[in-house]
């Protein structure tokens, strides 16, 4: 159906046409304090056309209607929009050539959500809730949400590519608030992958719920963390946020071209030589498993930083041409209705050779920091984000637990201070709100570094 848009009467006015179609089904079931707070079934679909006109500007048009006339109308609109800007735009847009692809792909999935009954789906968050609520009478609020997203996507281009991709992504979120008197302590846990209900074979919903609850209970008697600069070990759960927000974003070519923190430092040292960073959309199971991007480019295992040396940025076809680099398959749109942007897929840090115990041993006074409450960073790699809890480390030993607070600083400076990386990297679920939403993966070890802690407590 969407191929017909390539033959519409205005198609010849464009240098390049990319048409995307999508059908998405979302199931959400949230259990709040034992009862179903939300049970939602969402079906969405539509098409979009993106056109390059006179080699100078892009036009984009999307609609929830996807009949033949609607596809043609979208192409016509996109051409008109691109022309409006092309008239006064002097600079040409270069596009790195993309290999023509004709493929049909389905992401691996052993236990499809579609084959489960709604009753079975409801049991997932109910079990997580039970695991949490049975942990302690001090659990004031327990919320567990099961979410599955099934996508069918189609991409056709006037260059000849025809790509069809299908995937299911399953996630479980647990959010707990423990209360003792006037003291409230939140904690959260999450699981997620590209695949089906086999997600829960290794870690059951009950175990995840209990884990979140146990942490919140411990925090009730913990003190606030200190403020100031500390030598810390960042657990993979918080390292994932730091990597994505403060290192990953400045490695996206569009932000790098804004004069971001990594500037033009390709093949120059930018961080500790213990660090190798990559992005890989072909990691099976990762929430960023996206074999082809939304410009039809195959995802690569892209080495971004190799032993501390900046090697590449993440690119779409335009930025790749501007920087004279190969496209990396990082042009992704959250859904059919919006344009692709340069996004991370599964970003990772190669594991090192230290155990967590060895990383702690060398700290005279510092913190072991766990769990994320999300965060933000700018193109200069200045960041701030919340952690859920920490442990004091004194004379090489783990000591008492502290509550969460925010971390801040400049990630490039922080990554220069890394002097140990753990042996094991963990695949974590992640999300991003760069202009539009995205679900992504992170593959991260623990790291030891120096960082600013913004707590309200003392030593």
């Amino acid at each position, binding site marked *: 159906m969407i191929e017909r848009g390539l033959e519409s009467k205005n198609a010849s006015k464009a240098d390049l046409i990319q048409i995307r179609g999508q059908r998405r089904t979302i199931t959400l079931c949230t259990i709040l304090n034992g*009862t179903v707070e939300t049970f939602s079934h969402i*079906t969405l679909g539509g098409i979009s056309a993106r056109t390059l006109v006179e080699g100078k*500007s892009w036009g984009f048009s999307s609609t*929830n209607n996807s009949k033949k006339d609607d596809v043609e109308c979208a192409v016509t609109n996109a051409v008109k*929009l691109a022309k409006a800007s092309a008239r006064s*735009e002097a600079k040409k847009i270069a596009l790195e050539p993309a290999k023509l692809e004709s493929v049909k792909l389905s992401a691996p999935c052993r236990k499809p959500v579609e084959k489960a009954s709604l009753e079975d789906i409801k049991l997932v968050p109910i079990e997580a809730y039970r695991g949490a609520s049975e942990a302690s009478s001090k659990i004031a609020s327990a919320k567990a949400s099961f979410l599955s997203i099934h996508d069918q996507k189609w991409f056709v281009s006037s260059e000849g590519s025809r790509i069809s991709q299908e995937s299911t992504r399953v*996630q479980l979120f647990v959010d707990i608030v423990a209360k003792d008197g006037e003291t409230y302590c939140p904690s959260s846990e999450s699981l997620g992958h590209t695949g089906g209900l086999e997600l829960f074979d290794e870690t059951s919903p009950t175990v995840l719920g209990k884990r979140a609850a146990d942490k919140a209970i411990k925090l009730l008697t913990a003190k606030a963390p200190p403020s100031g600069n500390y030598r810390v070990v960042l657990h993979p759960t918080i390292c994932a946020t730091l990597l994505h927000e403060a290192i990953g974003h400045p490695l996206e070519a569009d932000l790098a071209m804004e004069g971001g923190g990594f500037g033009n430092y390709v093949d120059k040292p930018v961080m500790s030589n213990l660090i190798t960073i990559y992005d890989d959309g072909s990691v099976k199971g990762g929430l960023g498993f996206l074999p082809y991007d939304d410009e039809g480019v195959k995802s690569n295992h892209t080495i971004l930083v190799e032993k501390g040396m900046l090697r590449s940025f993440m690119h779409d076809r335009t930025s790749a041409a501007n920087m004279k680099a190969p496209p990396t398959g990082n042009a992704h749109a959250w859904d059919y209705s919006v344009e692709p942007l340069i996004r991370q897929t599964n970003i990772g840090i190669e594991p090192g050779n230290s155990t967590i115990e060895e990383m702690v041993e060398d700290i005279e006074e510092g913190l072991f920091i766990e769990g994320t*409450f999300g965060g933000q960073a700018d193109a200069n790699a200045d960041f701030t984000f919340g952690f859920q809890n920490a442990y004091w480390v004194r004379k090489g030993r783990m000591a008492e637990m502290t509550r969460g607070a925010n971390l801040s600083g*400049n990630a490039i400076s922080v990554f220069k201070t890394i002097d140990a990386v753990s042996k094991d990297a963990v695949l974590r679920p992640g*999300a991003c709100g760069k202009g539009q939403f995205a679900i992504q993966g992170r593959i991260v070890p623990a790291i030891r570094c120096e960082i600013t802690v913004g707590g309200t407590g003392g030593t």
Partner: protein
Amino acid sequence: MNFESNWAFLADSARRTLRRLGKMGAGQAEAYILATRTIETSIRNSTVLTESAIEDMGLSFRAATRDSRVGFACTNIVDNEQRIADTGEKALSVARLSAPVPGFALPDKQKATHVEGLFDKAVVMAGVEDAVDIARRLIESTEVVDNRVCARGGQVLLAYIRKGVVNSLGVDVETEETQAIGFVYGNGVNEGKPTPSCADGELLRSFSLEPEKIGQATGRMIIGLFDSKPIENFVGSVVFEPEAISYQLCDAILGAVKGEVVAAGGSPWADKTDQTVASADFTVYDDAILKGGFASRAFDDEGHPSQRTTLISKGQLKSFLHDATTANTLKTENTGNASRFAGGMEMTKMIIGNGYKAKPEVYPSNLVIQLGNKSKEKLISEVDRGLLVGSMAGFVQAGSGLISAQLGRAHYIQHGEIKHSVKGGMVSGVAFDWLRQISAIGNDAKQYFNSVVPSLRVEKVKVVGSN
């Protein structure tokens, strides 16, 4: 079918589906319909990058069984009536698997409030050429301030919005609105060192964006950061400008006044009605009928008429925000604060999106902090040692009100004068304490998505230096 006939088809199909759900055993049911036509122009690195036209139309159903089990389903694949009916039935089928929602209610039939200034035909008539022109003027006016300044990004968005609510209790309302948004962000590079990003923008209902005003304000903010220096730890007075107030402090207030949080016993203010929660000259209200307000509306997203609700008056807590269900649960008046555009950081909500894709929750319309009488200069001149904070990043912790935020655009104040901009650093504390420590309120309100707020000066704030 065109936009107009699509809307009529959708609205009629929704009404028929509600009747069908009633025959199938639904106790109450509701359809929410949203249609948008948007023109967007994006800015990147001093150029107008892309022009977009996005058209979307979808609807959602909430269906409740007679014992108040509630289900939700939505779709934007609305080309045949059977699919619309199927969506309604899906809402009822998932409702049957749910547990009863205590106090679940939908609004009764009432006349929508007339709110002035929410629709401007000029926005509907504007074309992509207009959006491109505004975007170019945003870039030029930002960069003309100083040749070290670059407009890194931004957006011009012109939207036509039509929404309607129909329910089984007789509510059948619809409205048309327009939005005109223009913003630009940028940074500067001075002696090889980039500044943090600065942004300014306007959120309007009419086609009266002033790109030169926005761009020049952004440019001036950027050059104000060229002389940045680290600071030491100290406790002092902080003047928070409207942008900083609109995020963390408004989030703290919202977390305490949301009816759902109050009903669940999670609000630190749950039992503090008529008690002091803020300094004596601090007044806050939710104003859904503010003329031309960006979050003003004729009715909320359940179809209840809009109103103005005083939340805090002269430091004393007066009311909470409610939708039909929380009002019914707590046996109080519905304040018309059901929203399908609620902000926040909850992952499932961010994934699903807003509008017809979201079921309503309690959220402010325009959260308005009443203006004070001091200019920003006066607020600064009375500070012995402190900061002027234009923007900061970081979240407030729900319930506890804990804030630890990284300074973005900030300046160091000594003896009533701005000395230099601040490099790095954080402020930390408890938002509910800060509300009691407000010593002065500015006369400089600015509109954000869900707030209209002035500058506030807060005493005894802990500043974490970056030295």
